[in-house]
């Protein structure tokens, strides 16, 4: 807050970097972004892996391969299957898993998710979810189960566009979604991941809205960690075409600008993007990446049949080993474990006897 009681959230600086009239070359932004990333995060990239638990969905998002009107076969992992998938991921070396579902359905509701989190928390130090907006009480149950982070993209901050693209279902409620990260943090989640699905509305306006959203949360929840992603629409069942083009140069500019304006937040790049783009962006703002991802339900176990198509097509299909080799050849260390369950246990009040009691 300044002397006149105004809060400068820094979005002006971001707008200047993103302006088409900006005199700053992409190269100069890249250099600043790299320097800031290097200072704050060193030569390391944290790794995580997504696990789709279920593709049942009650919503009809125009851009999604799992929308309720798609012909895709529906599946939900049984607890045994979940266990096996988790073991397979653990074998691959991962220590952070992101559990995903569609919008709330009787097949994949909060209780189901909490049970899966519990299973995951037995093997993984860090377990986070990307599911549907929940109440504070529901988020608390997940914290108790061992979940420490929630990813929830608003997809688009453009209300009109949001209403049109979310054709039916609970996801149509813009505000319920917008306010969910706040409820998650109130419930004791330690990290929140925000993002926009690039291609649904004017990318610069989306970036500014995303920036304001995270800044506002940062001020209120000063203990929370934040990560941001910039997914671009990928081919999916449904054949939805992006309404706004976001080419590599624009995406890179967005990422560089966010790193410059938010030097400390985690910036994530998934396997939606091509291998060459990901390799180039590692360390230029990006600090966290997934690899070997499947967007089908399960599918990591050896010999698992890939049933139906995924939520979208993955672009970087390299193995964990190949990807780590590529990172290392650029002098970046892939970090699998960057967190310890000991902190989570205290949070969930599951500690046995702690001498401070």
């Amino acid at each position, binding site marked *: 807050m300044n002397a006149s009681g105004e809060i400068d959230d820094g979005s002006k600086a971001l707008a200047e970097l993103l302006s088409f009239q900006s005199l700053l070359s992409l190269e100069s932004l890249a250099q600043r972004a790299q320097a800031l990333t290097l200072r704050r995060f060193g030569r390391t990239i944290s790794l995580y892996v997504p696990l789709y638990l279920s593709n049942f969905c009650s919503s009809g998002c125009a851009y999604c391969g799992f929308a309720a009107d798609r012909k895709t076969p529906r599946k939900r992992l049984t607890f045994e299957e979940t266990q096996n998938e988790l073991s397979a991921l653990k074998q691959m*070396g991962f220590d952070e898993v992101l559990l995903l579902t569609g919008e709330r359905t009787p097949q994949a509701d909060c209780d189901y998710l909490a049970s899966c989190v519990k299973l995951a928390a037995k093997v993984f130090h860090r377990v986070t979810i990307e599911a549907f907006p929940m109440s504070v009480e529901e988020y608390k149950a997940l914290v108790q189960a061992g979940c420490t982070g929630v990813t929830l993209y608003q997809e688009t901050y453009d209300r009109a566009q949001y209403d049109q693209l979310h054709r039916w279902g609970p996801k149509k409620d813009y505000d319920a979604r917008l306010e969910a990260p706040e409820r998650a943090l109130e419930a004791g989640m330690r990290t929140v991941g925000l993002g926009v699905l690039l291609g649904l509305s004017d990318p610069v306006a989306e970036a500014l809205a995303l920036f304001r959203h995270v800044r506002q949360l940062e001020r209120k929840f000063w203990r929370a960690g934040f990560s941001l992603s910039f997914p671009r629409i990928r081919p999916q069942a449904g054949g939805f075409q992006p309404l706004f083009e976001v080419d590599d140069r624009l995406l890179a500019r967005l990422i560089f600008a966010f790193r410059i304006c938010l030097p400390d937040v985690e910036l994530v790049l998934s396997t939606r993007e091509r291998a060459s783009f990901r390799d180039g962006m590692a360390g230029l703002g990006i600090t966290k990446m997934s690899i070997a991802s499947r967007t089908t339900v399960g599918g990591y176990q050896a010999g698992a049949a890939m049933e139906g198509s995924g939520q979208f097509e993955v672009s970087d299909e390299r193995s964990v080993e190949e990807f780590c080799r590529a990172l290392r050849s650029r002098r970046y260390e892939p970090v699998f474990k960057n967190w310890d369950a000991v902190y989570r246990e205290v949070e969930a009040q599951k500690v046995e006897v702690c001498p401070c009691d």
Partner: protein
Amino acid sequence: MGTLKIGAYEFSSRLILGTGKFSDVDTMLSALRASGTQLVTVALRRFNRERAEDDLLGPLAALNGITLMPNTSGAMNAREAVKAALIARELCGSLFIKVEIHPNPQHLMPDPIETYEAAKILVKEGFLVMPYIPADPVLAKRLEELGCASVMPLGSAIGSGQGLATAGMLRIIIQESLIPVIVDAGLRSPSEACAAMEMGCSAVLVNSAIAAAVDPSAMAKAFAHAVDAGLQAQRAGLMPKGDVAVATSPLTSFLS
């Protein structure tokens, strides 16, 4: 030239290294060797007992002549830090614990209140407690009174490379402290490490500035030299600053 004494330990090197941000384990190990360091900090969150390739504890524990100081980075409050310290001690057997509590994972500023609470417990638990703190002279004395083995005030924010932004406060802490004062965080260049030592610090801790250098080993060596130079300068007694000299015998004794 004199050693750094902490508890029953003595170190001839005054350069403490962090291990978190290197491009790979080999680069880290050669930087440690080049620095001549004898005390190294490692985060519990980077212990990985399930994947040797991702584990920092294994390769560090195998080094000769280096004492490990686990740290609690990732802890947001005293309870978490205490639990982490107990587990770290179990896993690596070191009596040292660097208490790092930063509730805000973005700027990573240490929480003075939680750090104080954690130190109180950990001192009783028999640890050599090395708290990472804001450069606050009162807090430093309070931690000393608790029985901490040293205080580790920040030069500037972690990974900011802003050097000794807190120099004024550091001077007060050094003047008043009965335990070693170790500047931790924010140093970017060897000259800043040298300045910290000239000022009277007992040691400095460096991570980013070495790990993110173009040639980490060469930079580690440069820091080692700078720390030595600063210590020697401090011992040698710097020429006075400004226009007032401090005389060794009173200038007005002839008047009496």
